[in-house]
């Protein structure tokens, strides 16, 4: 299992950030996520694998300075 914004979600092998977001509603706004405290931005979503037991937060729309 992984935790996404405090909700439990089934983990699957070869899960990437991009594949996870495809399963979530209203995630098109999401350009940055935090996985176990570390930031990952959208250019890295397709290549970044998610490990089992990860704690993930979807950051809101990046608002700049």
């Amino acid at each position, binding site marked *: 299992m992984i935790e996404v*914004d405090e909700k439990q979600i089934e983990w699957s092998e070869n899960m990437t950030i991009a594949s996870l977001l495809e399963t979530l509603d209203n995630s098109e706004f999401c*350009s940055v996520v935090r996985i176990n405290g570390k930031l990952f931005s*959208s250019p890295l979503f397709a290549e970044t694998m998610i490990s089992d037991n990860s704690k993930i937060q979807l950051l809101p*729309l990046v608002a*700049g300075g």
Partner: protein
Amino acid sequence: MGQIHLKEIKSISYEKSEVKKGYTDQSLRINLDSNDIIINPIEDKIKDKFIGGKGYDLWLMWNNVNGDTKWNDPENTVCISSGPLGGTPGYPGGGKSIVTAISPLTGAPIDSNVGGYFGPYKKFSGFDVIQIDGKSNKDIVILIDGIENTIKLFNVKNLPEDSYELSDVLTRHFDETKPVNVSVVTAGPGAEHTYFGCLNFSWWDAGRKMVRYKQAGRGGIGTVFANKKVKAVVARYGAVSMKTNSPADLTALKAVTKTHAKEIHTLDPKQNRMAVVGTTHLVPIMNDHDCLPVHNFKFGSHPESKVIGEEVYEHIFDKGFDGCWKGCAVACAHGVKDFSPFTGPYRGKKVFVDGPEYETVAGCGSNLGIFDAQTILEINFYCDAYGLDTISVGTSLGFVMECFENHQITIDHTGGMDLSFGSRFNALEIIHQMARGEGFGSIVGKGIRKMKAIFAKDFGANAAFMQDIGMESKGLEFSEYITKESLAQQGGYGLALKGPQHDEAWLIFLDMVHNFMPTFANKAEALHWFPMFRTWFALCGLCKLPWNDIVPEDNKNNPEPAKVVKHVGWYADFFSAVTGRKTGPEDLISMSEAVYNFQRIFNLKMGYGTREHDTVPYRAVGPVTVEEYKSRQKRYDDQLIEKYNLDISDMTSEEKVASLRQKREEQYEVLKDAVYERRGWTQNGIPTIETVKRLGIDFPEVLEVLKKNGVE
């Protein structure tokens, strides 16, 4: 440092105008030619139209300067205001000051928004806004004492030169037993010797028992302040509660304050963690999206950026409450204690560094090829202490470094210094020279626009190349985002009234990452709504960060998530609760629109404010050089083929650069047309008569300026 000497030269007692519904309805004018201290009422019609904050500042300035006024003329006026909502303890971001003057860099009005306690203390002392004009012939300190109800002017001797020590000395001098009652505005030697001097606004950090400060950075207001020989303006006031601002509906104010603060306390730890890392989280995010300025905005990312972002500063920042206003839940004003500079007058001493924020890390770090957290801290410390804007310093030095590497300037011009990217010791030496007004640093301190002229005329540098790479517009240096792939943000910078600062519009992700605004009409709408709403914070004395840097969990379900509509509603409730003026979300936009258009016409009055001044250097639009093109070759090749239907198979790299440039520059002009139309401006970028009438700013003097510029 010997005993400081303050000689009182003028003192008045006044009957304090109590705050009513967020306003004192009085302004304070200090004229330094005559040392007159004048208290004036603020008429209801001005209050209705200009709201407060930047609106009041601009109105007072408008009446004090003429179209020929230069930044160093006595008529130039430094205005400092709060706003009707400013000084609400506990409301996130509720304590900002807004400062304006005619800028040494742009020749037009500049505004800057800053934390610290000065704005609220000044208001609670009886004045919505203060204006400082004229010029003193001796160093002067101004005291607004809202406890004793006196205003005093002092000639001063033997004060510390730099803001770091001066803020501390004056805080303790004016209330040794309760330093929390004092806030000090200071500049510094860098402000005196450059055109991009900033102002430091202090507050007493009760937890650390020391003076802290934030900066009104942009456009050289500190330079104007120093040129008037003002060493400091001090406000003194006692305890503050929600009742101090005399809200119309205290119960409603408490309710909306509690709701917004609670949300931030709950969600900031899950979102950007600004209470822990400030804005340094933006460094890795911008780097990964190719938007972090590297080597004078040539590139948008660098592998070494990981050592100058939140991962590092989180561990360096001193732990403790870091709100720049009382009870702010965002509390993002972090700093580093016991830092020991390795250069300059504080070498080897232990100091507290207020910062760095994202802009300083990007401008004075990656943009200069300096990937060293300690050097960035040292640049941050000295810029603040000397009264220098870190954004203009970073962007100007980036320009210098590229000119140096490109052989436009050489060691013969720099006083023997190698100013290649990454030259951290020489970058610091330039900053020390700026403070002393010496050497090559004194040229850099004039800003990019003037450097371009000097380098071309005196050093034989290539003017066209420098025009392309010099990251300034309207004379102001760019803040720290790469805009090449976001046409909307090119407009966000180029069409900003004061010059390329991101506080009007930050649309990069909406445009570039999410493609939420694919058409020119979409972009124009965004370049109307966002600048108008963001202007509202400056009218009211607020910080914008709590609006859209921490957002409700259900915001993603809203059809327009970027507007953070729930928060806009809370701000309308906040305004209603304090002022008693029943206000809905749309009213916030109309309040701002009047002031925004007035500022545009103020630019016009000063000889600017037309289409030709809304240009940006090509570096902000696309790749200037083949090196830049090749760094993103696939992206650019694909655009030429797919977006512009060009056959590039036989093109040289130089031809591709030229073709892309032609297309992108055409698009920028089309964007201008669309934005001007949406804003109700002529195609020359001037508000129409219909627009000023609709907004109720059709004052005779406004119509006269329009008429002089062919609009009637």
